């Protein structure tokens, strides 16, 4: 396997007195798609927030391409190439689709070959091109997700972290989103994907980590997971 792009070692975190994550360690090799599975409310989103700097871990280290990032603020971590496409999309609702995309290239480092990359994004997510002047808050759920994806991709990161990209979407839109993710994987992007539902990623992920009450309780690839019906049953509702 290739060199690890992201190394997470012994990360713990929590809000107030309640610890949400306890001693989480895993790696994301360059060019792979790693999935974090687990039931709702068991720390998946918190983990991503820790990695992108929105939340400071109380213990442990996070390394991106050999550089420690766990002590950096969120706005600096982006510059190191980590893209977080969060739950709820975190769009700028009062700004147009185009302005949202422009925010993706806020950092000077992200602005190189902007026109060209924007064209790529429009090709990948053609819906955005039709909606450039529309305000983000008027978009449908699926369009929002795509805008979040496009905006995140424009930041030019090396590691893409997606937090439940299928959440709250109609099945047909979920299919579209996962097609985009498959495209990105084919392009060789490194992806860390959080999901509640195993069925979408079981064939796609190079490695799957199961997060339960804040710790990783199982890991393996899709085939191994498929061979563990009791895990599928308990954690992922079949």
């Amino acid at each position, binding site marked *: 396997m290739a060199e690890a792009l992201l190394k997470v070692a012994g990360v713990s975190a929590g809000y107030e007195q309640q610890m949400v994550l306890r001693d989480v360690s895993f790696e994301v090799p360059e060019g792979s798609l790693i999935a974090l599975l687990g039931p709702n409310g068991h720390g998946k989103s918190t983990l991503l927030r820790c990695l*992108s*700097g*929105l939340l400071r871990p109380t213990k442990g280290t996070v390394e991106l391409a050999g550089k420690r990032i766990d002590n950096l*603020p*969120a*706005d*600096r971590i*982006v*510059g190191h190439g980590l*893209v*977080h496409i*969060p739950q*709820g*999309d*975190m*769009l*700028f*609702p*009062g*700004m147009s689709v185009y*302005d949202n995309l*422009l*925010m*993706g290239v*806020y*950092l000077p480092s*992200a602005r190189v070959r902007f026109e060209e990359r924007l064209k790529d994004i429009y090709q990948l997510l053609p819906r955005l091109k039709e909606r450039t002047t529309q305000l983000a*808050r008027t978009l449908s759920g699926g369009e929002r997700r795509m805008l979040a994806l496009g*905006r*995140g991709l424009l*930041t030019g990161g090396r590691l893409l972290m997606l937090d439940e990209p299928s959440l709250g979407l109609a099945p047909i839109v979920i299919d579209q989103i996962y097609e985009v993710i498959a495209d990105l994987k084919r392009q060789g992007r490194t992806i860390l994907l959080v999901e509640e539902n195993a069925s979408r990623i079981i064939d796609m992920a190079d490695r799957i980590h199961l997060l339960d009450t804040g710790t990783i309780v199982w890991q393996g690839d899709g085939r191994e997971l498929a061979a563990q019906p009791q895990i599928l049953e308990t954690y992922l509702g079949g």
Partner: protein
Amino acid sequence: MDYLIQIIVSGLTLGSMYALSAVGLSLVWGSFNCLNMAHGSVMALGAYFTLIAVDSIGFPVWVSLPFAMVGGALVGTAVYYLSVHWMLNTRNYETNIIIATFGIGMVMENGLLKIFGGYPYAQPLTVQGVAGLIGNVPVNYRSIVIWVVAAVLMVALGLLLTRTRAGRAIRAVAQNRDGAKLMGVPVARVYVQVLMLASLLAAVSGILISTTLQIVPYMGANPLLKAFIVICLAGLGNILGALYAALLVGLVEASASTLWAPQYGFPVILVVVILALIWRPEGLFGRVMVARQ
């Protein structure tokens, strides 16, 4: 008919002045939930800055305007590092910051009183004379200058917020703080910029107000409250709404003082605004521009 013209002329003049201060106040609230009680003292400081520039330093009169704008921006920076910087994300931040900035405002106001004394000064940066009559109502050059300055600054602010990278970052932070961080926006730096911008506008607003009244240390108190009422009416954090609401409040106040008596202007506004807020608790224009999720 003349009454109507009179109301529109003085209403627009009042509205223009309120708009400059209210928009800044609203911008600051929208960005980091700070009701800046020092805003009024920054208005007063702006007026004194022109006085310092012209009387103490001896700058030509026209230089005093940019001088005061820069001064205002610097004061805004100081306010940030004295209060917001230490208090962001602490418990009861929203109320505590009001009290803290009230403290800063009192320091500034009484500092001015200490340095300049309580007697009124005339604003050196002003124009005299009547430009002409509309109907039988005289229109001063001063009013025209106030309209033009306010309009130019509002348009400039609009362009800044919608057309520039820094402006987009300001709006992004107001609309989704974490989302902006994930795009690499250094949020704290944006906060400082916002407070600089708001204070710069407040300084200009103070100068305009002092051309119609006089320069005294507590001159910001009344306009500050009007600006508060304006942003309540518009919906806190709604910048474009604050502009409209300012003009509306100016017109209502002008109507009340023209048709009734000057001292009833403020009470009438307050009653109208409270009624409007009972009708629409999120403000007349809601949170159009900086809706938070």
